[in-house]
């Protein structure tokens, strides 16, 4: 039949069966409200066959759609007894309704994309003082959890091995530590990661401080950046 048609469209191009159906309908230039079920079903199955040959794992949804199409096709082949059903519902509606719905959503998505997207087409004054401005020398990068954990491990190594957690000692809570750090940040705007651990000798304090930092990131109280050249991690108040 028409093998060449699908050649460019293989593998991951169609996100789901609906996508494939839309493609087939457009390609054949048929009316979505009057789908030639036999033709579309054949081409759909052909496509699935191609995927199988290419050893591409078929998502279950594709099979379900194939079954639906065949089901509709078989219904259309049966003689219609108008009196029995009362109204003559087109069996193809089963596929037309969701298709039209899907096409509407596709077009809605298109019109969203065509809007003036913030950070893409239009910009606002940068809310973060440190975020964004490109300066080759003083570039700061936003770091992830792994860099943070690395830094934390380095600090843990600094404390002597014989030190133990003293359970009776007055221990500071994560909440209190957060407010301490906020105090520092309110005064200075930013602080080096290592600096926050300088006074602490207890492992528990170090952990509390680290948890406080994580919590503050989660609550978007601070942003963490690493200086590209020196590798110093700094916390910025936002």
């Amino acid at each position: 039949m028409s093998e060449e048609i699908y050649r460019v469209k293989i593998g991951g191009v169609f996100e789901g069966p609906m996508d494939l159906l839309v493609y087939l309908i457009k390609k054949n230039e048929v009316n979505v409200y009057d789908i030639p079920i036999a033709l579309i079903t054949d081409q759909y199955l052909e496509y699935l066959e191609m995927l199988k040959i290419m050893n591409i794992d078929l998502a279950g949804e594709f099979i379900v759609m194939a079954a639906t199409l065949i089901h509709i096709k078989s219904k259309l082949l049966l003689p219609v007894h108008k009196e029995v059903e009362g109204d003559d519902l087109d069996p193809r509606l089963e596929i037309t309704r969701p298709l039209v719905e899907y096409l509407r959503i596709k077009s809605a998505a298109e019109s969203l994309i065509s809007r003036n997207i913030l950070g893409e087409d239009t910009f606002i004054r940068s809310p973060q003082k440190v975020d964004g401005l490109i300066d080759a020398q003083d570039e700061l990068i936003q770091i992830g959890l792994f860099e943070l954990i690395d830094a934390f491990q380095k600090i843990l190594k600094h404390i002597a091995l014989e030190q133990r957690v003293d359970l009776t000692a007055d221990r500071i809570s994560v909440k209190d530590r957060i407010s301490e750090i906020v105090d520092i940040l309110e005064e200075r705007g930013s602080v080096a990661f290592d600096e926050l651990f300088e006074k602490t000798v207890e492992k528990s304090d170090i952990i509390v401080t680290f948890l406080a930092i994580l919590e503050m990131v989660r609550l978007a109280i601070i942003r963490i950046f690493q200086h590209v050249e020196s590798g110093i991690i700094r916390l910025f108040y936002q």
Partner: protein
Amino acid sequence: MTSDIKYIIESLLFVSTDPLSIDRIKKVIPDADTKEIREALYSLSAEYEQRGGAFLLSEIAGGYQIRTRPLYSDWIKRLIQPGPARLSRAAMETLAIVAYKQPVIRNDIETIRGVDSGGVLRVLMERKLIRVLGRQKIPGRPLIYGTTRQFLEVFDLKDLTELPTPKEIEELGEAPAGKTPEAIPENDQDGNAEKGKNA
């Protein structure tokens, strides 16, 4: 005095990182009434239009914000580090479903798209474009999704009623009379836009 208010508002717009609502402006300038503020905003907007410079006044998420004209986006992108990667087509489709159908559950989204949408929903949640509105009181108590204020801000929308109407799919054929599937319901979720900030 009128022009004073106008430039007071302009200064507020200049320093504010979020869109400023008329109510917010009113709190800063208690003497000004809503009408005055609105007129000042229109006047500012007209001024920017007439000047045809780098920025304009956009009505976003129930407020007003100074934004750059799309014309200069390429230059700005050379100065500012690129933001997060563009949303994939799958993500845009899912976002469109949430935007038009909200409040909506995952199962309904997947029915329309015909594919699993869990991963895409997670991406949209991470981008703070959608949020969980609650749980539906049906078996399994599925999560209900809706769009956020951030969504309005990113897509340059005044409110959800401003969502573009999906264009009719004429090129795909006329619907025979009586068989037109129901149109996408009109959105009446304005209230959610405001609440979205707490997401």
